[in-house]
């Protein structure tokens, strides 16, 4: 995973350069450039409407950029692919508003996310192998929903849904995880636990986390990128960016 792909244009896992996108004339992302190295965990902060979610939409193929380069693994042009293809390349995503399958059990939510061939025939004649079952058990243990495995996901609390979605990400075992506001709607205790969980995940995955909670970001202790009006305002360790005057002005100072 850490070795650059042969023929790669860059050694970065994710490479965004000069990306812009506008909705009905409104420039949500303007000239955004960002690189994530293999194995890196990056925190992204920025005021509401800064374009953090839109950036994830671009990476995952939901939104096509008007201009700019979006490369994955050094050589794959993500702007040419659709959502499913990008997911199968190894990019997983947790949504800002937790989105799980309400009418499936928690266990089935994990099963659906579990890394496997996503074809019609494979799923039609699917048998859950012992290794898969074990993996599902492990994940349910990690996200502390083992006892609730047979409950419908729709009956979970907001915080639990966040965790279930993180569990689904784990089951996908992607190379790169995009995690949009994982601590939203969580108690302080839950937030701290989520930070621990994400750090754990970051040991063998590359992760991009968007979060507003400064305590949470501090807990992660990773490089921070500040987005503002669709482009990068500052980048560096949290202490450094939070000392930046512009950052204080547009974001922290409010």
């Amino acid at each position, binding site marked *: 995973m850490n070795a650059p792909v042969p023929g790669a244009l860059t050694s970065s896992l994710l490479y965004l350069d000069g990306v812009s996108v506008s909705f009905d004339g409104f420039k949500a992302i303007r000239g955004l450039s960002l690189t994530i190295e293999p194995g890196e965990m990056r925190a992204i902060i920025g005021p509401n409407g800064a374009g953090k979610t839109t950036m994830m939409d671009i990476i995952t193929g939901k939104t096509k950029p008007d201009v700019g380069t979006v490369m994955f693994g050094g050589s794959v042009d993500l702007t040419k692919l659709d959502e499913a293809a990008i997911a199968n390349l190894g990019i997983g995503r947790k949504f800002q508003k937790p989105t799980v399958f309400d009418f*499936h059990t928690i266990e089935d939510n994990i099963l659906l996310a579990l890394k496997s061939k996503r074809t*019609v025939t494979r799923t039609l*004649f699917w048998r859950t192998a012992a290794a898969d079952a074990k993996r599902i058990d492990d994940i349910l243990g990690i996200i502390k929903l083992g006892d609730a495995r047979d409950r419908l996901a729709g009956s979970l609390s907001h915080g639990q849904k966040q965790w279930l979605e993180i569990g689904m990400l784990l089951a996908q075992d992607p190379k790169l995880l995009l995690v949009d506001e994982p601590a939203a709607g969580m108690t302080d205790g839950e937030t701290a636990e989520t930070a621990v969980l994400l750090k754990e995940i970051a040991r063998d995955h590359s992760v991009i986390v968007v979060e507003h909670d400064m305590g949470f970001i501090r807990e992660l202790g990773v490089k921070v990128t500040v987005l503002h009006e669709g482009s990068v305002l500052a980048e560096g360790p949290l202490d450094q960016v939070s000392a930046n005057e512009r950052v204080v002005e547009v974001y922290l100072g409010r």
Partner: protein
Amino acid sequence: MITRFLIQGMDKRGLVFLAVLAALAILVPLANLLLPPGSLLHVPTSTMSLWGKYLCYALLAISLDLVWGYCGILSLGHGAFFALGGYAMGMYLMRQIGSRGTYGNPILPDFMVFLNWSELPWYWYGFSSFPFAMLMVLAVPGLLAFVFGWFAFRSRVTGVYLSIITQALTYALLLAFFRNDMGFGGNNGLTDFKEIVGFNVQAQSTRAALFSMTCIMLIAGFLIARGIVSSKLGKVVIAIRDAESRTRFLGYRVDRFKLFVFTVSACMAGVAGALYVPQVGIINPSEFAPANSIETVIWVAVGGRGTLVGAALGAVVVNYAKTVFTSGFMAPYWLFALGALFVFVTIFMPKGILGTAQDWWTRRKAPPEPSPAAEPAPAE
């Protein structure tokens, strides 16, 4: 593997349904053929054929439930697949008439002679063979569904727009089949059938056999649908119904899964139509009428969407009610009654007869589980 596929996820409700159908398949024909007409348990042939028709509708309802109840594709054109299967069977039955038609032409059906056609159109070739015709019963609706779905699902047409184009599909076919020069008997359709695989279609024993066959096909259709929805593919399909975009971000090609269930469903509807035609003795373009497809949706809603058994139940209950209603003085009001029923069910029993009964049953037995959000949230 096949058996395991078919029995996975079988529940008590499904077993009861299968047992009832198996019993009907055996007992009704026996009660019709062996018991004297005076006997209390004798089933008249007309009643048997009427119920055979209901069971064809039940199979159609199951096929619709597969796409609507489980995959969220509200097809308002499923009657088209039913009718196409019916026409394929009708074409076979027409070729079986041979020289016994009014004009005595050994090759051409009467309506072609009447139109002064000199030879059989190419698309009628092969229909004198039963196996070929049965293949067409599956292939024609299946292929149409595949091509239609290929374009619709790939371009991500969903919701109301999809419903409208399915409705347009069946309407277009209605108009096409009305035309004499299409070669399907125009307005009058196909009728005056004589024989099916060598047996007189009118004979009591043939009708009994057709009834049994309908039960068997309904069992088969149910098992296939049950197998599909209980498989992991079924879970993917439900996931698509509830959060389509989320499913894509997990790496599933939503269009292919939709295409699969839509095509299987269309084949199933085709089989239902093929069984229907010899039992009612006619197939004409009115089977393509948009209203028919809408009625099918009502059956499924009344019985309980997303339950399969409920869909079949809804088809039988509503059609039984229709027969009772339209044979009496209230006949002119049937459509109002049907509309009222639909409104009533939608408002007071959103889960249909079966879903409501089941809720009531579980509530009696256990404290309620917090119910999931009524509106599935779309992925952001």
